[in-house]
């Protein structure tokens, strides 16, 4: 196994750039996607009929087509269409439309929004209605019930599934190498092109992904354990002691 190229700063630069891009993409897509997911879940549960139907169509299409096709659709398909719009080069949108990172993030946010939206919707439906009604009985507004009761309870129910979605998101990142974004796979491809080594560069980034997955899983597990309500607390809210 020849890993001599690892000591070359020329290749190290590309690997580092790829790694940083991967992490940024993961962060932006996760945050944006989860926010969108809440919106999607709400639209399907409480939205007006046309919006609910539209959202259902959105999640069905996003979950029923390959991510790679979606990436190409947005970057090469929609991107090309938009660039034909006269005057678009002068707007502030232009730097974004030129950037593969923007399209990668957009596609991932929509994808996470669809998959996680379904997960959160299912969880929200499983929250006992009595709890929500109790919230209203206490005088909380609809918004407060949503933010302080419904959503947190729903997330408690589906947090393991959501963390699973985050891991799946990480594993989808190499696809962006096909739309000219410098990620770890593109860095590995550069090394493969120039050194003609077939396995070593790929094994290295497989190892990097393995390590990142482990770190991410552990981190998310910490989040799972410390999310309010996931672990029974030892604090007593009522003046009742266990010894009677």
């Amino acid at each position, binding site marked *: 196994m020849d890993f001599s190229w690892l000591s070359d700063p020329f290749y190290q630069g590309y690997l580092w750039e790829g790694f940083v891009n991967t992490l940024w993409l993961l962060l932006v897509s996760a945050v944006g996607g989860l926010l969108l997911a809440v919106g999607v879940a709400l639209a399907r549960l409480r939205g007006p009929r046309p919006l609910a139907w539209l959202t259902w169509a959105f999640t069905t299409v996003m979950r029923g087509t390959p991510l790679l096709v979606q990436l190409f659709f947005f970057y*090469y398909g929609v*991107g*090309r269409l938009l*660039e034909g719009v006269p005057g678009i*080069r002068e707007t502030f949108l232009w730097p974004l*439309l*030129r950037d*593969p990172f923007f399209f990668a993030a957009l596609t991932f946010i929509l994808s996470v929004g669809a998959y996680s939206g379904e997960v959160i919707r299912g969880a929200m439906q499983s929250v006992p209605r009595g709890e929500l009604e109790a919230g209203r009985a206490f005088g909380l507004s609809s918004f407060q019930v949503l933010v302080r009761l419904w959503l947190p309870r729903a997330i408690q129910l589906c947090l393991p599934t959501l963390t699973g979605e985050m891991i799946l998101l990480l594993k989808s990142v190499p696809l962006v*190498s*096909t739309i*000219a974004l*410098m990620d770890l796979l*593109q860095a590995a*491809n*550069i090394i*493969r*092109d*120039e050194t*003609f080594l*077939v396995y070593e560069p790929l094994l290295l980034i497989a190892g990097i992904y393995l390590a990142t997955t482990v770190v991410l899983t552990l981190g998310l597990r910490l989040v799972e354990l410390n999310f309010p309500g996931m672990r029974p607390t030892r604090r007593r809210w009522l003046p009742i002691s266990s010894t009677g």
Partner: protein
Amino acid sequence: MKFPMMIAATVTALGLGHIAQAAEPLKVGISGEPYPPFTYKAASGDWTGFEVELAHAICAAMERECEIAPTGWSGIIPSLNAGRIDMIMNSMSITEKRQRVIDFTRPYYFTPGAYVAASDRELDIPDGLDGLVMGVQGATTNATYARRELRDSGVEIRLYDQAEQVNNDLLSGRLDVILADEIAMAQFLERDEAGAFEIKATAPRHEAYGEGIGIGLRQEDDALEAALNEAIATVIEEGTCASLSEQYLGTDVCVYD
């Protein structure tokens, strides 16, 4: 029990039909991704283009049967060494780096790399590249040249898997300039949609570019190499190469010695 057996039989039949193949005809490896006008696929499903037709001519001169075998470009050398294809004939430059892993026949054509950008853009290579976005196809000598020589020029290099994707992004304005094979670019500029673009300069001879385009072979296939060299010489001397070149490329790029 019958139903599962039927399923198993169908699945096996579907599978076996595809697995075994005899090893007789020579497999000419080309890139599965189109590279007009050298290799591309018409809607009829047949591969055509300068190099495909030249391959047929060379095989006829060698009196061997040849089969066009499209393969992913970025894995074409490993595919050759693994025996999936017998030769690579897709505008692959003869470079010292590649010669460490495969052999080449004598060169059959040569073209330099060319920079293409919008006609109304003033472009001074390499100083004017600062701050611009340049697109290039990965796994090509142009990509290697760009990475090595243009690092200090301040240009942002974007790598694409397919040549057509690079062209597409130039046309849509995402890229300011692209670096690609001169002949492919001459062809590209003939398209209606490329009317506002032109070749700005050609890249100088650099070790990244090598001595010309040759057919890639496994290092142990000496007999095949000798046969191919003879066939290439024949095809060039007879003028078949020149006429195909004029037909597909508009100019004669064959290497005469």
